């Protein structure tokens, strides 16, 4: 079985974000880019599935040359092959999904893992869109995954609980924190990944339906008052919450 993992390359969650000169995207200067945190669970689940059932794994990323770092990390963790769909231009989610669906079809992957969202644009939609374009089944925000023959059983996180979802291959699964513990790349894996070829392909040009007009900073929040430094301040705090904020 061929298993694909779609990965993105995003600013570290500890990064400070400032708006770039064009007022439409971030200024990347001084920002460390990493493997999208949710994609690490996707990579891990692909590796675990291969270890159990055999097959071949491929990581796919759409973006500029810098995305090779993230693909290298996937290879170092144990993914067999990597493909970069090279495109530096802005793409909306559907346009990304169309390019990925095309490549997944070429690869002939029956099982595809995505992180549940990229922590840059935070859309949380590309996996579901890709599945519809491919005609694959899809379960999103998955915290447990089991494959038995072609039967897929997952739990997905919802407000205040979980849904148990049943479906079958071919399928797209989007992964949530809690699904597994992503492994660290071994030194051997890192060395082997350096020697591996990352295939580069040109995706079809973007046809965007969602246009970014402006990026802006959220309204600054004024620091409020420090009511005190020990429990003697508690009655005053409670009074403020009742009378000023009127929240309790």
């Amino acid at each position, binding site marked *: 079985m061929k298993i694909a993992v779609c990965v993105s390359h995003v600013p570290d969650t500890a990064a400070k974000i400032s708006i770039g000169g064009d007022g439409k995207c971030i200024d990347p200067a001084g920002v460390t880019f990493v493997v999208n945190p949710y994609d690490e669970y996707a990579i891990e689940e692909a590796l675990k599935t291969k270890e159990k059932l055999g097959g071949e794994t491929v990581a796919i990323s759409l973006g500029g040359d810098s995305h090779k770092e993230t693909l290298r990390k996937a290879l170092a963790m144990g993914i067999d092959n990597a493909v970069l769909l090279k495109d530096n231009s802005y793409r909306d989610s559907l346009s990304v999904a169309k390019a990925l669906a095309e490549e997944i079809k070429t690869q002939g992957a029956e099982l595809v893992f995505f992180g549940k969202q990229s922590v840059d644009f935070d859309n949380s*939609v590309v996996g579901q869109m890709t599945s519809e374009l491919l005609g694959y089944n899809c379960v999103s*925000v998955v915290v447990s995954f089991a494959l038995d023959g072609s039967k897929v059983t997952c739990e997905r996180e919802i407000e205040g609980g979980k849904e148990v979802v049943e479906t079958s291959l071919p399928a797209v699964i989007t992964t949530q924190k809690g699904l597994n513990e992503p492994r660290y790349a071994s030194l051997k894996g890192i060395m082997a990944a350096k020697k591996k070829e990352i295939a580069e392909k040109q995706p079809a040009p973007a046809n965007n339906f969602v*246009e970014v007009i402006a990026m*802006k900073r959220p309204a600054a929040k004024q620091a409020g008052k420090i009511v005190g430094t020990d429990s003697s301040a*508690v009655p005053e705090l409670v009074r403020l919450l009742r009378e000023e904020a009127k929240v309790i």
Partner: protein
Amino acid sequence: MTKFLVFIEQRNGQIKKSSFEAAKTASGLASKLGGSVEAVAVGSEISNLESLGGFGVDKVTHLKNETVTNYSPSAYTQAVVKFVSENGFDSILLAASSMGKDLAPRVAAKLDAGLAVDCVALNVEGSNIIATRPVYAGKALVDVKVTSSVKVFALRPNVFSAGTPTDAKAEVAVTIIDSPNLNVKVVEVKKSEGKLDVSEADAIVAGGRGMKGPEHFGMIEELAKLLGAATGASRAVVDSGWRPHSEQVGQTGKVVSPTLYIAVGISGAIQHIAGMRSSKYIVAINKDKDAPIFQIADYGIAGDVFEVLPKFIDEIKKVKS
């Protein structure tokens, strides 16, 4: 003339509050742009669909099938896409809930439509709807314009007002779904018993590393219970295994905007603040007076959590009794 469609989310036959917010928002846009508002719901039995009239919906269509009791991504997508294709709508609004975020991209992909998800504002400029949505977990916002002929907007729950409903009743039509596609099907819903979820709560009491160990979270839970609040946690304590991931607030957890957020023993790492800064009132209790959390807190006590929190619980008990 813009034809709006609101997708109504129901669980166990009850309409979710965030769907009323979407309905009211659609009717506000329709009155500015000129247009009509219809709604659609999928499921077996659904109560009170006519009440959507009070939020500005003219007509609700219930796409009905006895076998579709729980959410089924495949059956819902098929039914909604068919309904939109046959009736022709310009803009589709729904809540960006767990269900909405799963369904919206499927419907958008099938209709070849642009999608703006997790919108926190929808404004009319000329004949366009400009959607504002947070990116980088709220460290920045983008204004986007959707240019496809059918447009889909998923609204962040708890942000848009549902207003006070009028007595108007919507016309309810029932259409039977012939053969639902149940390729992907929810077979069971496991509820976390008696626990409020941070993403739906109006108040949250969250604990961080300053709580010093999982055994001390009883105090967080007690305060939360007194306030009718959900319990939240910082990434540090979730990664240490003190609390479940479902409670994590921040960039790799949940982004929340309750009326009241009480941060106890949380210093305020950038990824945590990104997830809760839009809360209406923020209270911080932390012994380090220079902790970044105080930069965004409305009220703070820069003191020892283990001395302040028990007193806080006592005072709230007094107030509540």
